[in-house]
C-alpha cells in the first residue's frame, strides 16, 4: 500500500507492506543506503536512525510506525558532510571499515541534541547500543567530546 514517510525533511511516497521493517523501506524503497543492516534484532545499532529526536533501531520496527513522524537518516545529517559530529569524526579519524559508523553518528547526533556536553558516562549510556567490530570506541568517545566543543564554538 502507499505510505508517506517524512525523511530528512522531505515527504517520500513508497509502496510497501505496512509491516515491512523500517530499515528495508529506507534502503530498498526510499533508496537511501547509508543506513545499514547488521543483526535484524536491534542489538548492533548499524540501522540507527533518528525519529522525532530519538535514536531508534530501524531494523525491527514496522515502517507504519514512522508515518507522521520526522525521520532522519545519515544522508540528512548535513548537506556537505560538515555537521560537528562529522567534522569531529574526520578530525579524529574515527571510521575504519565504516559499516557501523552511520549508526554511531546518528546515536551521537541524537545524544548531543539532547545533552550538548555529555560526560563519559552519558556517552557510554547513549552509545551502548552501537557495536563497532573494528573497535573504534576510544576514538568515538573522544570525537563526541570534540563535536560538543565544535558545536559550542
Amino acid at each position, binding site marked *: 500500500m502507499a505510505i508517506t514517510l517524512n525523511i530528512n525533511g522531505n515527504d517520500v511516497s513508497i509502496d510497501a507492506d505496512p509491516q515491512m521493517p523500517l530499515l528495508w523501506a529506507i534502503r530498498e524503497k526510499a533508496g537511501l543506503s547509508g543506513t545499514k543492516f*547488521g543483526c535484524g534484532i536491534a542489538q548492533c545499532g548499524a540501522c540507527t536512525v533518528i525519529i522525532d529526536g530519538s535514536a531508534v533501531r530501524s531494523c525491527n520496527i514496522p515502517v507504519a510506525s514512522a508515518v507522521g513522524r520526522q525521520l532522519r537518516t*545519515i544522508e540528512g545529517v548535513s548537506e556537505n558532510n560538515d555537521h560537528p559530529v562529522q567534522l569531529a*569524526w574526520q578530525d579524529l579519524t574515527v571510521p*575504519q*571499515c565504516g559499516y557501523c559508523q552511520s549508526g554511531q553518528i546518528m546515536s551521537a547526533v541524537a545524544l548531543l541534541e539532547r545533552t550538548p556536553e555529555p560526560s563519559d558516562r552519558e556517552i557510554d549510556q547513549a552509545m*551502548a547500543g552501537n557495536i563497532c567490530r*573494528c573497535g573504534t570506541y*576510544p*576514538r568515538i568517545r573522544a570525537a563526541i567530546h570534540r563535536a560538543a566543543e565544535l558545536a559550542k564554538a
Partner: protein
Amino acid sequence: MNQMKFTRRNFLQVSATAAGAMVIGFHMPSKAMAQAEGSAGTEINAWLSIDANNIVSIATPQTEMGQGAFTSVPMMIAEELDVPWENVRHVFADANRHVNNENLYTTTSTGGSTTVSRRHPYMMQAGASARERLRQAAATRWGVPLDQVVAKQGVLSAGSNQGTYGEFAAEAAAITLEQEPAIKPYGDWWLLGTDVKRLDIPLKTNGSAVFATDVEVEGMVYAAVAACPVPEGKVVSFDFDAIKDMPGVIQAVELKQTKDTPTFTDLRSAVAVVAESWYQAKNALAAMPIVSDFGRGAAISNESQNAEALSLLAGTGVVLKDEEGNPGKGYDKGVNQDAVPGLLESATKLVVGEVYHRPFEAHATMMPPAAVADVKEDRVDVWTFTQDIGRSLNEVADQLGRDTTNVFLHQTYLGGGFGGGYNMDVHRQAAAISAAIGRPVKVIRSREEDIGGDSQRPPVWGTYKAALGDDGLPTALMTHFVGEEKMPNFARSSVANMPYIIPNRRHELSQVQSHVPIGYHRAPGANSNGFIIEQMVDELAQAGGWDPLDWRIKLTEGNEPWQRVLLAMKEKSGWTTDLGDGEGMGCAVVESHGTIAGCVATVSVSRRGQIFIDKLQYFLNSGYTINPLNAIEQAESSAIWELSHAMFGGLDLRDGRFVNTNFDSYQMLRMPDTPPVVEVQLVNSEDGWWGGLGEPAGPPTPPAIANAIFYASGTRIRTTPFTKATI
C-alpha cells in the same frame, strides 16, 4: 622475511582501456560509479594515471576493510612518483584486467598484515618506474641529458625548462626503460613515515561509501540463504509450495555442493529463497520446511571436543621443529628437544601448568557477507565481500563455467574483513542464483546464517611443564598444544618461535577434528596461543621469584627488537607489581606478522569479582612504519578486537551447531566496557625489517589482562570469556 616476486612486465603493461573494464551499455549505479575502477587521464602504468590537471589516480589491488590499504598503497607509490599528496586520488584496481593479464598487480590478496610489510618493494617500484619514464620523456622533448631532469612534487624541470607530469604523461606512457630504478631506502622518504589521514574517511561519515550490500542493479531481486545448520551437513529437500504464496516470494533455488569436502570458498550445500524484498525472502525462508542430513558433525559439541583435547594432552604430541610457526625474530635455534623429558623427570624444582583454553570465535563482520550478481549470456558482473578480488573473480568464472575475460568483479568497501573475506562462498551463491533465475540478485546473509556458518577461528588448548634452576629461571620447558587439524599452523604460531632463551625446549602438538569450517582470522594463532604462553611466563616468573617483566627482559638479553619493546614497557608504563588491594598491573609480549607487540594492562577487581580495565598501554616494534597514524589506529583496533573476545566472546557448539549466532547471545565489547585509556607507542628499530600492523596488538591483550587480574585478585583465569570466570 619472504618478499613477493614481481616482474618488469607489471610496470610496462599499458592499456588504452584503463577504465575500459566498465564499458558501454552497462548500467552502473551512480554512487558506485564515483568509486569505480580506473580513471580519466593518461595511464603511465597499470598502477597510476595522470590527467591534464596533474591529478594522479592510483589503483589499489588490495581491498579496503578499514585497515588503510586504500591510503597505504597510494602513499607508497606517491612517495616514489614524487607528487603532492593533495593531488592523489584513489581508484579501485580492475580485477578483470588483473586476472586476464597474468596477475598484472602481482597479487590482489589482502591479509596477514602484508600490504605494506611484504608488498612495498613492487608498489614503490611502480611509482619509481613511472617517475623515471616521466624524466626520460622530458629529457627527450627538451633535448637535455637525463641527469639534468629533476622530478619533484609533480613538476619536471631542467634549467629553464619546466612542465607538469601531466604534460608529459602521454610520452612517458610510450617509453620502455632500459633499467628499472632502485627504490628509495628509509631515510630518503618525504611522505612515508608521516601521519596521513586515510582517504576513505570522508565517505564513511556521510553514508556514501558503497559496500556490497549497497549496490543496486536495475531489475534486481533479493535472496536469503540457508545452509544446513550443522556445518558440513547437507540440504536434502525443501517444500517451496508451503511458502510460494507468501508476499513477494518469487522462487527457491537449491545451491548444490560441488565437492564432497568443500574447502574455503567452494559452494556449500544450501537453499535460497528469492523475493521482491530481502525481508520477504528472509521471512519466507524461515517458514519453508527444509529437510537436512546433519552428517557426522551432529555428534560434536564444545564438551566433546574439550574431553578429547584433555585426553590428548595427557599423552604426547608431535614435536614441532624450530621453524614451524610464524617466521620468528631471534628464535634460539639451538634448543635441545630430546633432553627435555629427562630433565623434567630429574628436576629439583618442577612447575606443572594447568590446561589453558580458547574457544571458537566468529568473524562477525559488521556487514554480514553479501554479494550482488548480474549473470547475462555474454557478461557477468559481481560485487562481493572478498579479501581477494582476483581469486573471487576466478571462482565466479569457475562456478558458472565462464571464461574469465567476460567476468567482471568489482571492488566495494568491506564492512570489516578480519580474514572472513577469504573463506567465503557468497559470490558463488549470488552467481549461481542469478544464473538460475535469469535476473540480477542481491544475496545478504542473515546474522544467524553468517555466524552459524562462518569459517571460525578454531579452539586451542595448551599446557606446559618446566624445570627451574637455582636462579629461578627455567632450565627446561615442555609445552603441549592441541589445535584443530584443518589449520594446524594456528596452534603453532608464537609457540616454538617464542623469543625466550631457555636452554632445553620441546614443543608438542596434537590435533582434534571438528566438522566446523576453519579459516583465516585476525591473528588466529597468536591471539589464542599468546594467551597461554604469556600467562605461562608469568607463572614461571612467579615460581622462580622473578618480577614478570624482568624475567622477560632477562630471557631476551641481546635480542634488540624484543629488548626495545620490553624496556619501553618497563620505563614508560609506570610498571609496578606493588599496587593496592584489588588493583593489578600485568604485562605480555607477543610477536605476530613480524611485529613485536607488548601490552601493559592496569585493572581493578571489585570485591564481588567484577573486572574493570583501567588502562591498556601498547608498545610496538614493526621495524618501519609508513603511516604512524594508521599504525596506531590499527593497533587500537586489533587490541579491542581481542579484548572483545577475551571479555565476552566464545561460540557455543551444541549437537554440531552453533547456538549463539546473533549479538544478543554472541556478545561483543561495547562502549561502556571500553577501557578509559588505550595508548599506543611505536618503538621501532628502523633497521631494515618490516612488520605488519593490522593484527599484532591483539595477542598480548588477553594475557596482559589475565596477568593483571591475577595480581589484583589472586585468581588466574585460564580460559575466555573472562565474564564467565569466577573470581
